[in-house]
């Protein structure tokens, strides 16, 4: 045997293993690849059939409707816009009023934290389905459907913001300063800008949710959007979409801080109709309709039969989780591909504006609406839902990542785009991107469940079944299961999230 050169010996002693090492970069790479491998592993179990025979022709007609919208065909657009804004504004305000006090006790009360996690875990549309049963198609249903989950979200996020407020001012106070004074003079002013910024963001989300309430019959913009798309009147659907995009794009002007009180007061008159609340009906719903009927009768054997009659839930639960995972990984890949389009480090002015436009377009369109359109094109498999989740959430993350990247200064000049991306920008923005994805996982799972209402085989599908057949007790149980699943996944995501990374 010939002597081995020393350099090779050294290599054999420490064979370079792919992706080994404890550096943050390697850790994130392993993490990401595991996630993608997991998605690929479960991919064969997902039903991704294209059921439609001629999706391209239909897609062409939808695109044509978007490019050449027919505004005259939209019936009373002003009242629909008015109601959409009024519901979003008052839903947000009510959520804020309920959420703020909860935020103050959030870290001290396990009960409050659990309650908030629960109301957050149920999607606005599911809340709407519940309230529809007692308040009918009314403003109260719409407001409650938004305000209740938002209260839970506000409580959590406000609490996080307040916790991160610098303590220097508070520490400088003389001993014995009252809790209230301490809060009003040293904590609130420091946190105010962030609280306000988050509330604005929530309001934009509320506009999207308010539109979606049209899908269950409340006369917001979504009402006409749903009918127009379903019946193939794409020119009208395109017009409503444009109205919605204009509404979102012009937010900084019409929802200017100084106009908010005026807007709130006057939009109060746009809210309606108000229901005649039938207390006995509400009581019956809360005390009887939503509880297992045999349980109320004290019949234990009947309860077992009741449970047996619920069809197998495992397939829909598995589908919901599967869609959540595929949606998250899809969103990551979409974000990785799209963010450079909107960053000023790449391309020219024209491509940047176009890229930003694309991201805003995808981010402003609610998943449910995207899924609804893809479903018309492709038929009710998991595929349209996956596309919708990946595109919407991916664009949302890409938008934030691009903004982060734009704030970075590159120290090495003259690198080609690939070098800038690979060596200078991606290593710096990627940790934030992954953290954002983990924050988003909870939202993606919530959406996976609700997309079932469109006919995709996730939890929302069976929940809608039981609402349609008026078996509210089973529907309620399924909602509890959905919420539980969501809370579990959220906890899991928090655990798995690469440590020491804050989303930017």
């Amino acid at each position, binding site marked *: 045997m010939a002597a081995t050169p020393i350099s090779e010996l050294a290599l054999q002693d420490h064979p370079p293993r792919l992706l080994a090492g404890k550096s943050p970069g390697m850790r994130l790479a392993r993490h990401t690849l595991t996630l993608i491998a997991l998605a690929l592993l479960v991919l064969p179990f997902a039903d991704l059939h294209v*059921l*439609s*025979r*001629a999706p391209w022709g239909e897609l062409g007609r939808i695109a044509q409707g978007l490019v050449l919208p027919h505004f005259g065909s939209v019936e009373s657009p*002003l*009242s629909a*816009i*008015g109601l959409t*804004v009024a519901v979003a504004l008052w839903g947000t305000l009510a959520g804020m009023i309920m959420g703020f006090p909860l935020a103050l006790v959030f870290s001290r009360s396990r009960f409050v934290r659990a309650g908030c996690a629960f109301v957050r875990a149920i999607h606005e549309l599911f809340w709407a389905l519940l309230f*529809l*049963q*007692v*308040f*009918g*198609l*009314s403003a109260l249903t719409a407001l409650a459907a938004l305000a209740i989950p938002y209260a839970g979200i506000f409580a959590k996020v406000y609490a996080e913001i307040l916790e991160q407020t610098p303590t220097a001012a508070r520490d400088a106070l003389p001993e014995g300063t009252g809790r209230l004074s301490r809060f009003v003079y040293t904590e609130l002013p420091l946190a105010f800008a962030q609280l306000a910024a988050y509330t604005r963001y929530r309001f934009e989300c509320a506009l999207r949710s308010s539109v979606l309430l049209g*899908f*269950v*019959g409340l006369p917001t913009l979504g*009402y006409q959007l*749903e*009918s127009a798309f*379903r*019946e*193939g009147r794409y020119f009208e659907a395109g017009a409503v979409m444009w109205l919605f995009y204009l509404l979102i794009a*012009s937010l900084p*002007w*019409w929802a*200017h801080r100084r*106009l908010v009180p*005026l*807007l709130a007061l*006057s*939009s109060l*008159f*746009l*809210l*309606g*109709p*108000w*229901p*005649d609340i*039938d207390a006995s*009906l509400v009581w019956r719903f809360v005390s009887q309709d939503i509880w297992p*009927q045999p349980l109320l009768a004290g019949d234990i054997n009947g309860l077992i039969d009741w449970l047996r*009659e619920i069809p197998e839930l495992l397939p829909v639960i598995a589908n919901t989780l599967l869609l959540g995972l595929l949606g998250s990984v899809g969103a990551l890949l979409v974000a990785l591909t799209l963010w450079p389009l909107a960053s000023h480090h790449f391309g020219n002015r024209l491509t940047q504006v176009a890229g930003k436009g694309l991201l805003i377009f995808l981010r402003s369109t609610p998943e449910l609406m995207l899924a609804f359109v893809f479903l018309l094109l492709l*038929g*009710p498999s998991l595929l349209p839902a996956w596309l919708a989740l990946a595109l919407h959430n991916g664009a949302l993350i890409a938008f934030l990542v691009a903004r982060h990247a734009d704030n970075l200064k590159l120290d090495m000049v003259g690198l080609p785009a690939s070098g800038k991306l690979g060596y200078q920008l991606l290593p710096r923005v990627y940790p934030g991107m992954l953290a954002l994805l983990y924050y988003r996982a909870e939202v993606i799972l919530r959406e996976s469940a609700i997309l079932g209402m469109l*006919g995709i085989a996730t939890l929302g599908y069976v929940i*809608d*079944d039981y*609402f*349609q*057949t*008026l*078996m509210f007790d089973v529907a309620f149980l399924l909602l509890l299961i959905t919420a539980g699943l969501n809370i579990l996944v959220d906890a899991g995501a928090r655990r798995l999230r690469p440590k020491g990374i804050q989303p930017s």
Partner: protein
Amino acid sequence: MRLAFAPLSLLLLAGLFSPSILADTFRFTAIPDEDESRLVERFSKVADYLEEKLGVEVEYVPVKSYGAAVTAFRNDQVQLAWFGGLSGVQARRLVPDSQAIAQGAEDAAFKTYFIAHESTGLDASNTLPDDIQGMTFTFGAKTSTSGRLMPDYYLRERFSEAPEKIFSRVGFSGDHSRTLALVEAGTYDIGALNYAVWDAAMQDGLVDTSKVHVIWETPTYPDYQWTLRGDADEHYGDGFSEQVRQALLDMDDPELLESFPRSGFIPADNPMYAPIEDVAESLGLLR
């Protein structure tokens, strides 16, 4: 720039109205079984007609789902409703004393058509062909009588299996117009729909008969009916229920009737729908 948008905010505020519930308006709804434009056209005419006959303000409340129609009736947001067989039974169980007061002349013996895309190679026959097993299939709405309940029942009767076992895929299109569109486009091989909707679409030349045709029709069963809340007399005066029933039975404007499409309305009562109730219970859609 900011100033330029201020008028937009004002416009949002000024040009709008808030519809509020007036106590004495008589409201009705209908299950959304067809394209909304069709429903709005049909029922705004009915509203005008009833307003003239009853001497109270009458308003049509459109809804998005069968369940929402029943809920609106239950919550007294509407006092009258044009229900299908099953939704009517659901509603009358939830609102004691409510009555089926009239049905279409055709509704005493209603039926469902099974339709197929041309690519299936199926022809019209006297029984459901064995070949449909393994194909894809769509119902209409989940609680539709002619689009779900009865076709489900006859499928089970023919094959002794649940539809999910018979077909490779079972969907719910949402309404009859959509079932027709989906089978015509070939998204599903087979569909089941309200025969009156099919006949009307054929008459209006809206069906591409080279793509889709009827392969089987079910035996007859009772279907659509007008259902009125039991407390109508209390709210609108003695004899109001009878007035409503008479107005519906007297409807003879061909244009109005054609929009349903029905040749006229005949009296109906709750026991007529017992067969529907039985089938729904056996399928687990009612309890």
